[in-house]
């Protein structure tokens, strides 16, 4: 077991495009859970709409890259309105159920045989990302940072754009949540009834919050599609939502930098575990043919999330008690008893 190479791999992944993708997804969830007090269990669905919106527009309609991005973001906004309208006036669990079922149905429909002509069905789509890489101003070659080999000029381009998007999203969220309307949104998370009695349309605020977080999630999906240069139904299983949540809770829900920090730490940890397992496998200590990597990833992440939620729900940066501050607005009383 080479600790050095494990650490290098982990560091490389922690600063890599996948970490940026899940940082974005977690920022979207932070808007939902941390600021608006909504439990969206279908972030994978928003990511899927972003990625497939881009892919279908470019591949099928031969549209330009910017149009594909707009389509992806627009579909996510529509999905948010669709799931939010029947559920935002109800207790929190209803949105959770509808987003979970909705995202899974979306994934199944897009991967179905009937949608083959539109979405590539089970095989997915590819060949839509070249327009992005054509914009690359970095000269060809391999790049590194001191001891860390970052990769080809293509990867550096994705990294730069990805993390720039993360910074942009953070600044956007910061600006919005500090605005008067943003403050209303966070206030109604803590006391919905008080906000209503002041005449605030809490339903509208929550819906806007849901749309905003969902659109950021779609941006994450677009970045993922560009990094992988393909979209595939199996990428958008609820596991994606789980990873985003683990990143969010680990970093600290309700704090601005929480999701970004959480994504970096999570990706570091998951890659370290993965590489360590690989080393054990090649050394013959364990039999790797028996273990599919994706299940190990989600097992580690979900266990971490469980432990965090039970013992330290505020994670690294968060304030204790933040996550318990919401009460459901309508009867029956929904604090767990």
């Amino acid at each position: 077991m080479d600790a050095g190479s494990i650490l290098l791999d982990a560091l490389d992944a922690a600063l890599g495009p996948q970490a940026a993708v899940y940082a974005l997804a977690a920022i979207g969830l932070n808007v939902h859970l941390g600021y608006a007090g909504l439990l969206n269990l279908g972030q994978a669905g928003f990511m899927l709409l972003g990625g497939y919106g881009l892919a279908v527009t470019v591949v099928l309609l031969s549209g330009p890259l910017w149009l594909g991005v707009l389509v992806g973001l627009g579909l996510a906004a529509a999905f948010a309105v669709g799931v939010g309208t029947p559920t935002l006036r109800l207790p929190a669990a209803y949105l959770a159920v509808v987003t979970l079922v909705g995202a899974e149905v979306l994934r199944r429909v897009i991967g179905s045989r009937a949608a083959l002509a539109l979405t590539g069905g089970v095989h997915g789509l590819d060949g839509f990302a070249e327009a992005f890489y054509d914009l690359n101003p970095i000269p060809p070659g391999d790049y590194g940072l001191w001891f860390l080999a970052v990769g080809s000029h293509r990867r550096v381009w994705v990294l730069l754009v990805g993390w720039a998007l993360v910074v942009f999203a953070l600044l956007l969220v910061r600006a919005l949540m500090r605005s008067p309307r943003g403050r209303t949104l966070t206030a109604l998370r803590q006391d919905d009834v008080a906000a209503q009695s002041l005449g605030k349309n809490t339903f509208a605020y929550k819906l806007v919050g849901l749309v905003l977080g969902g659109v950021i999630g779609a941006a994450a999906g677009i970045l993922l599609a560009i990094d992988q240069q393909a979209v595939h139904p199996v990428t958008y299983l609820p596991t994606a939502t789980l990873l985003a949540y683990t990143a969010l809770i680990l970093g600290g829900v309700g704090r601005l930098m929480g999701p970004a920090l959480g994504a970096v730490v999570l990706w570091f940890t998951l890659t370290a575990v993965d590489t360590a397992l690989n080393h054990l496998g090649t050394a013959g200590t364990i039999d790797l043919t028996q273990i599919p990597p994706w299940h190990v990833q989600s097992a580690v992440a979900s266990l971490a999330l469980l432990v965090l939620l039970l013992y330290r729900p505020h994670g690294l940066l968060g304030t204790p008690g933040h996550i318990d501050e919401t009460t459901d607005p309508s009867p029956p009383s929904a604090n767990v008893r």
Partner: protein
Amino acid sequence: MVRLGVAVLVCWLGLAGMAVAETGADAGSGLASELPRIMRGLIDGIRLGLLVAVAAVGLTLIFATSRLVSFAHGELAALGALLAFFLNTGVLGPQLHLIPAAVIAIFAAAVLGTALELGVWRRLRAYGSGPLRVHATAIALAMFLHSILGLAWFRLMPGGALAPFHDYAVQRPLLLGPIRVTPRDLVVISLASLALAGVLVILRHSRVGKMMRAVADSPDLAASSGISVQAVHAHVWLLGGGLAALGGVFLGVTDGISAVMGLRVLALILPAVIVGGLGSVPGAIVGSLMVGTVAEVSALWVSADLALVAVLVVMAVVLQLRPQGLLARSGGATAGPPVRAMRMKAR
């Protein structure tokens, strides 16, 4: 209620319209010749509905007593099926007959459910956790169980995919009029109905059932009547876990076992309890039957994936028009009339 009835009628007319359009497309075939297929779809739908109901009833009871939507319930059903599969068909297992294997699996799931209540939900309740934290924990738990079961399935069936139990796998169907059913379908339908009837009887007439209903109505009143609310929660999870596993075994018998069946089951029981009314046991049964028939009848003309869209539409319509569900009273209900606070012997 009238609006809801109209909406459901519209959904069914839509489905019927699809059927007519489909048959009209085939030259020379009429609706009459489609009738056996539709009958088959209805039978399959009722069967699926009953099996889903067995698992859904546990979910709705858990919600009734603790206001928690247990997302892990699908995985508990899958655990039941997988454990029974390992004991029955697994190469490394004891190769038991399906019935003892199922009994062991149900017992194990019931124990796990109780352990979850004692170790997880009781702790969160003691912290005074809000609904966000509790439901986030529920989904984390579900995903954890899903990963563990996925890893286990990969060991048992390295090819992945779907597999049947060793027993009752291949049967010759009987002919009852225009419909063909296998004996195992009939057995499964009867056993599921028996289980559901048993739950209703327990809730209405047994002491434990009355205590469950009391806690569902008002934990404070129940506690002040001398009922141990903590014990009731443990019993609800015992029952819920066992029922989930039973439903999982039934579904494994009729549809086969796979690593992803937990998610598939969840995608059926969640709409079922929402349509029927979260917290209402008869509602869970009615909702499951509706979801089952909508799914199977739609699957006659579209693939199974798209049939789920019809289920989602029904759920969305119910949420929009009658969010508390078809059979729930506005305050959230359980089977039977509310138990008045009466003096009960402290346990």
